[in-house]
């Protein structure tokens, strides 16, 4: 057995050129194109980098890109000569990809340059519109395996997408001011406040004051804005004490400097601002190439072919009206709920339900939007426009709920409020004490307490712990939408699974052959036949036969594919048929073992046997389920399938788990809301993969989209999980729980620092030097502590 030179898939030796073997003609053509253009470096940068070209490439597929309206929506810049466009290419995965994509201009001379952003998986292309066209570029990209992801959403949003760099500017400015203020404060520290020359002292302090202005007015602005917003809603949020600390520190410093009584605490103040900004920036790490907020628009293609009296016409999908006749070609998605007028539908709903086997639909039957046509071209009449289709409705049902989820739930907020209250009462006590003993010390004691006890170390511990955990999760292929998901994850006590694609492999399957024994020639026949087809079941059987018998293909003539029925071909004048029972047995009435996932084989009208294809459970599912139930989680399983697997599942999940079959998307969603109503303490996690789980994912406290290929589409969710790590679920939850403990520990640490600081402050002894040492020291130790602790715990939990 050899591996395809282009994509690395196991294959036979039938397709070869230049002593290199390929799995299919598609891969070979790509290789030839690259070779002609001297781009074979592609294969040297990483081994077998290619992407298998999926299905056949119909030439009209991108015809809508010639439509002026579509063009104007996609192009970012166009002056008649030069145009610029950028695409999302989910297939981009290695250095070779970057190299090839940036050398596109050697293949198409009309392309001026192309530039990739690997982390976003974006490419921006500038091209000469008189030499090439948008459609040609997309076709070229699709041909070499990087089909751009163009959706309805792109057309609407593309133009106002801008990268927010405000935070980086603020950090830069704060860093600059902080370090210079520190430097200018050193003489003050070392002379313990008695610099001999007045002129020097004045220069230092006034320069400090000048440097602190941008920190106060520019860098710290977001704390004031957020604190003010909270106060207006009568809510003391975590930014309020920070804003108070900054203002008090600045106010006292200005007073001291202007009155010439001291140097102020400007160094501490700008330090607070810098550390807080860095902390927030660290926590706000996002995964650029993922999109967690996809709505239905991201799933639909941008263009559609409408049949009018005067012929075919391409149009944008939003212009689609009820009663329009549309053409759907092979591998195109059905954009709206529609009735088949002409042709035979063979609809692949894997996108919607996670189910791999295409469903056959005949003329006059209603087909829901979101399915992919796998057979030949069909003509359809639109019943409902895109905005009202079944999937869209499902999606929009619970937007209101999803918006308020996980907001302001963080346990850090109540803590910060207690902290603020305790702080004010300590400052108050100090004021009362000094009022009776030495009135001149009221002012220094109160202001110093407010400055030194700023809850910034409290906040830093949360931001850095969660920021670091976000990265640890990411390393283990669980990508969280933001850090508030970690806290929600720690509370989970009810877990709802979807079966297909979540617990089972959706691509890998076990093939069992039953029937008359096949000799090697017959195996080769079955192999050669399945090799011609792109139907998912054929591909599964083909892979299995190749792996097991390492066969070589035979030449085949008269290959025909009958959508929804099977495939047939002539090999050495033997008629070989594979497919449904009726199909291979020449319209014999149905027998006892028919069903989806069964592929029958007959040679020369003689029935040979059946390939039974069943989904395979992922590794480690058993252990994970045991671990989860041992930790007192309530487990539920909702499956869209029939109950064939019931006994197996009950064995894995135990007797107490609720297992339901034949659940529609609506059922799943309602099931979750019922769970919530019946038990107010239930914190629900939902794991699902298809669009049919989208409603349930949104309804749950934590919705995790499980994806075979994380770069591909996934429904809106709180987290995206690579399907290879599903078995680590309980480790993930434990880690999230440990994270909360780390934050609590570092709170205690920061409170110890505060006790030390406050003990100086209430005695009115806090010199700028003590403040300047104490504050950065506490910040740095806390950051170091939480970073090390979260990394160590991750290792201990096996992540």
């Amino acid at each position, binding site marked *: 057995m050899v591996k395809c030179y282009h994509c690395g898939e196991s294959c036979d030796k039938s397709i070869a050129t230049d002593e290199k073997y390929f799995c299919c003609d598609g891969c070979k053509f790509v290789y030839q194109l690259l070779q002609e253009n001297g781009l074979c470096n592609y294969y040297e940068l990483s081994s077998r980098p290619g992407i298998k070209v999926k299905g056949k490439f119909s030439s009209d597929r991108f015809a809508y890109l010639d439509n002026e309206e579509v063009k104007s929506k996609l192009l970012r810049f166009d002056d008649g000569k030069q145009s610029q466009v950028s695409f999302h290419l989910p297939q981009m995965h290695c250095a070779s990809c970057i190299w090839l994509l940036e050398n596109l201009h050697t293949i198409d001379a009309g392309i001026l340059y192309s530039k990739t952003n690997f982390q976003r998986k974006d490419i921006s292309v500038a091209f000469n519109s008189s030499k090439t066209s948008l459609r040609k570029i997309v076709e070229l990209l699709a041909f070499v395996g990087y089909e751009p992801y163009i959706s309805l959403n792109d057309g609407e949003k593309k133009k106002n997408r801008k990268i927010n*760099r405000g935070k980086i500017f603020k950090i830069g400015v704060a860093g600059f001011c902080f370090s210079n203020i520190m*430097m200018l404060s050193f003489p003050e520290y070392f002379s313990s406040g008695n610099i001999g020359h007045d002129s020097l002292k004045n220069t230092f302090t006034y320069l400090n004051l000048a440097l602190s202005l941008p920190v106060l007015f520019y860098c710290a602005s977001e704390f004031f804005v957020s604190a003010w917003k909270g106060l207006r809603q009568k809510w003391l949020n975590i930014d309020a004490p920070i804003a108070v600390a900054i203002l008090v520190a600045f106010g006292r410093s200005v007073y001291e400097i202007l009155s010439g009584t001291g140097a102020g605490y400007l160094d501490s103040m700008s330090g607070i601002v810098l550390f807080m900004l860095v902390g927030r920036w660290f926590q706000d790490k996002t995964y650029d190439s993922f999109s967690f907020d996809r709505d239905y628009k991201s799933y639909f293609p941008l263009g559609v072919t409408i049949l009018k009296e005067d012929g075919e016409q391409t149009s944008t999908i939003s212009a689609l009206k009820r009663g329009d006749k549309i053409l759907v070609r092979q591998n195109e998605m059905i954009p709206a709920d529609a009735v088949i007028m002409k042709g035979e539908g063979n609809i692949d709903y894997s996108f919607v339900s996670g189910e791999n086997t295409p469903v056959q639909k005949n003329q006059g039957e209603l087909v829901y939007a979101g399915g992919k046509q796998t057979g030949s071209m069909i003509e359809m009449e639109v019943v409902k426009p895109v905005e009202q289709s079944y999937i869209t409705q499902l999606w929009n049902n619970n937007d209101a709920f999803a918006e308020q989820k996980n907001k302001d739930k963080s346990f850090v907020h109540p803590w910060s409020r207690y902290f603020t209250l305790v702080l004010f009462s300590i400052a108050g006590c100090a004021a009362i004490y000094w009022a009776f003993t030495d009135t001149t010390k009221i002012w220094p004691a109160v202001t110093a307490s407010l400055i030194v006890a700023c809850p910034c170390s409290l906040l830093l511990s949360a931001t850095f712990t969660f920021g670091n955990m976000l990265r640890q999760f990411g390393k283990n292929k669980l990508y969280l939408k933001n850090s508030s998901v970690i806290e929600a994850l720690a509370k989970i006590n009810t877990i709802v699974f979807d079966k297909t694609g979540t617990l089972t492999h959706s691509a890998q399957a076990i093939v069992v052959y039953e029937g008359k024994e096949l000799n090697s020639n017959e195996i080769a026949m079955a192999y050669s036949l399945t090799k011609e087809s792109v139907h998912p079941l054929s591909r599964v059987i083909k892979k299995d036969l190749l792996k097991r018998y390492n066969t070589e293909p035979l030449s085949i003539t008269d290959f025909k594919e009958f959508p929804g029925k099977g495939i047939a071909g002539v090999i050495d004048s033997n008629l070989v048929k594979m497919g449904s029972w009726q199909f291979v047995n020449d319209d014999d009435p149905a027998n006892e073992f028919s069903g989806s996932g069964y592929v029958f084989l007959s040679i020369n009208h003689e029935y040979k046997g059946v390939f039974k294809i069943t989904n395979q459970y992922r590794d480690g599912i058993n252990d994970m389920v045991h671990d989860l139930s041992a930790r007192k989680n309530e487990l539920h399983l909702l499956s869209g399938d029939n109950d064939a697997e019931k006994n197996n599942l009950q064995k894995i999940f135990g007797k107490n788990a609720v297992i339901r079959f034949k659940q529609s998307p609506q059922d799943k969603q309602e099931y979750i809301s019922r769970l919530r109503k019946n038990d107010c303490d239930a914190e629900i996690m939902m794991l699902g993969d298809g669009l049919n789980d989208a409603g349930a994912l949104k309804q749950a406290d934590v919705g995790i989209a499980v994806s075979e290929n994380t770069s591909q589409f996934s429904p809106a969710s709180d987290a995206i999980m690579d399907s290879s790590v599903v078995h680590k679920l309980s480790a993930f939850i434990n880690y999230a729980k440990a994270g909360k403990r780390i934050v609590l520990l570092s709170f205690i640490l920061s409170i110890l620092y505060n006790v030390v600081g406050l003990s100086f402050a209430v005695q009115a002894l806090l010199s700028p030097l003590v403040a300047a040492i104490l504050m950065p020291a506490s910040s740095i130790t806390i950051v170091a502590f939480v970073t090390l602790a979260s990394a160590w715990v991750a290792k201990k939990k096996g992540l």
Partner: protein
Amino acid sequence: MSVLIILIVVSILVAGGFLAAFIWSVKKGQYDDDYTPSVRMLFDDKPLPDTTTSLKSKQK
């Protein structure tokens, strides 16, 4: 001691220069993508085979 004041002013000006350079580089988008350039710089410019170079020169 007035020389100290001059030195301080100079040092702040130098630091300000670096700050300006930083802001300029952020604005230019140098921090937008911190991965791809690290790969891109390792690509060799291979000499193109004669056929393609001649084709290219014809087009020009």
